[in-house]
């Protein structure tokens, strides 16, 4: 097959077609891994150096923050929540105080500006550099914003039972914000939207299906439908065991599902067999133990196995089972990319 651009490769996969090679990219790559493999490289330089098929920009990385205590790394995020960053962790802050503690807070609440120009600067730079060549992906996460900034996870989950109308109100508020944000992202030149709020744990969904249907999926459906009206694919990420949610994810219209979490026991062969004709399968290369502490041979064997199980006929993007975090062995990640390019050539020659 004629060599495709990275953008064409990704688009073929999300449209469930067979590209020239199984594509690859990552939702997140820790700077320590970048520095080890390409010292001094920016994220974008690294994507080019490794020939990854997409650049991915996180909603939270472009949010605005007000620093409240520099020494203790305490900030007020753009939603009004007070959070503390760990000195070690992968940019995941701890919520100290949610933005909305009472119904009165909600009445007075003012949404941040989803058109704030600073948010789009990096994406616009990426458009100049990569448009038409590599896929430009932006993430959004309405449910995670509701949980991690607006309300706090314990109160939000309890509200679903004790005051569901309150959660409906929070949901309406966020849908307004996210509909405008997604429009702005696509206007700025984003090729694909990726929704990244986790909605499952290792043992199954975070909340009951009735609560998923009422509080989580309507916002997702709006985003997916809008993206499709703009001819833009929309992908879903969630950690955890999602067998119970797969039908809802597919029915919502998502074009891809990531990461088929191997730590939660998700089997990529089964996912491909049951859903591979309806949705692009993404991920499944274990980044917990394998990419951190496994041998290069084990990494190659796992990549080969993932491609053998999910690559047939296209519709597969080979990625880690979450992200390339700081404990991933840089050599193993490089080996993973080499193996994808070697074993992922179509027509596949894997038994």
């Amino acid at each position: 097959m004629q060599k495709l651009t990275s953008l064409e490769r990704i688009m073929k996969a999300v449209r469930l077609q067979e590209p020239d090679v199984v594509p690859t990219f990552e939702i997140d790559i820790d700077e320590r891994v970048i520095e080890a493999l390409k010292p001094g490289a920016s994220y974008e330089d690294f994507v080019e150096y490794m020939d990854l098929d997409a650049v991915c920009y996180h909603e939270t990385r472009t949010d605005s923050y007000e620093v409240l205590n520099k020494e203790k790394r305490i900030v007020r995020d753009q939603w009004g929540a007070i959070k503390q960053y760990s000195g070690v962790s992968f940019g995941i802050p701890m919520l100290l105080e949610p933005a909305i503690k009472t119904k009165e807070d909600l009445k007075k609440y003012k949404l941040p500006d989803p058109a704030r120009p600073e948010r789009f600067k990096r994406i616009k730079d990426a458009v100049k550099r990569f448009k038409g060549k590599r896929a430009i992906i932006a993430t959004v996460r309405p449910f995670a914003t509701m949980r991690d900034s607006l309300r706090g996870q314990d109160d939000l989950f309890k509200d679903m039972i004790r005051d569901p109308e309150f959660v409906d109100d929070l949901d309406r508020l966020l849908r307004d914000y996210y509909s405008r944000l997604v429009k702005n992202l696509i206007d700025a030149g984003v090729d694909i939207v990726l929704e990244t709020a986790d909605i499952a744990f290792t043992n199954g969904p975070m909340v009951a299906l009735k609560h998923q249907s009422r509080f989580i999926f309507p916002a997702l459906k709006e985003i997916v439908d809008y993206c499709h009206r703009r001819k833009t694919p929309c992908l879903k990420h969630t950690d955890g065991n999602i067998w119970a949610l797969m039908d809802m994810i597919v029915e919502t219209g998502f074009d891809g599902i990531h990461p088929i979490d191997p730590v939660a026991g998700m089997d990529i062969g089964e996912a491909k067999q049951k859903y591979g004709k309806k949705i692009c399968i993404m991920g499944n290369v274990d980044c917990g133990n394998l990419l951190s502490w496994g041998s290069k041979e084990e990494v190659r064997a796992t990549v080969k196995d993932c491609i053998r199980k999910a690559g047939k006929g296209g519709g597969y993007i080979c990625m880690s089972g979450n992200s390339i975090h700081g404990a991933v062995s840089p050599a193993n990640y490089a080996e993973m990319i080499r193996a994808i390019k070697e074993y992922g050539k179509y027509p596949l020659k894997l038994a």
Partner: protein
Amino acid sequence: MFNFNELTDSVADGQVAKATELTKKALAAKVPAKDVLNKGLLPAMNRVGKDFEDGQIFLPELLMAGDAMKASIGLLRPELSRKGAAYTGKCAIGTVEGDLHDIGKNIVILMLEGNGWEVTDLGIDVPPQRFCEEIKKGGYDLLGLSALLTFTMPKMPETIKLLKEAGLREKVKVIVGGVPLSQSFANQIGADAYARDAVEAVVKARELVKK
């Protein structure tokens, strides 16, 4: 005669007001607090733990049940003798340094408290030194270490090493848990037990203090 099943159902269903009312009723009727805990609350927490594990209930239901249990235990506490029949042991627990995940740890705390443990929650992002300082205070039977991120797992052996250096390792059993962990990791770092979820944590914790 006090209806323990009704209290069990109200706690398992997360009905805070009803659980509070029934607990008050039990105490007014001179039902021993340890019976309320063992025959009313403990079966409730075991039921919700199992239902959560089996995917019959989810985090919202579990948290509501936890609130009902806490409300009831709060009323029983003055009556419960610290080392009485209802007392299983004392545990300090926290998510290791660099890791800010707390859902799993909080579920374990909920289940331990419902099973007669006195729990000190050290929170998240807890440095090894902080775990040691707490154990040094004395009175602890168990130390629980939680991690969700692969790259924070090395803080667990570091904590165990510090406990050894401080002469505290023999004073406390160490149980570890979290998504990326395994039994072999627990063996490798010299922990006393590994639990894959909150229900198993309660079982293993009880086994550890029996030994």
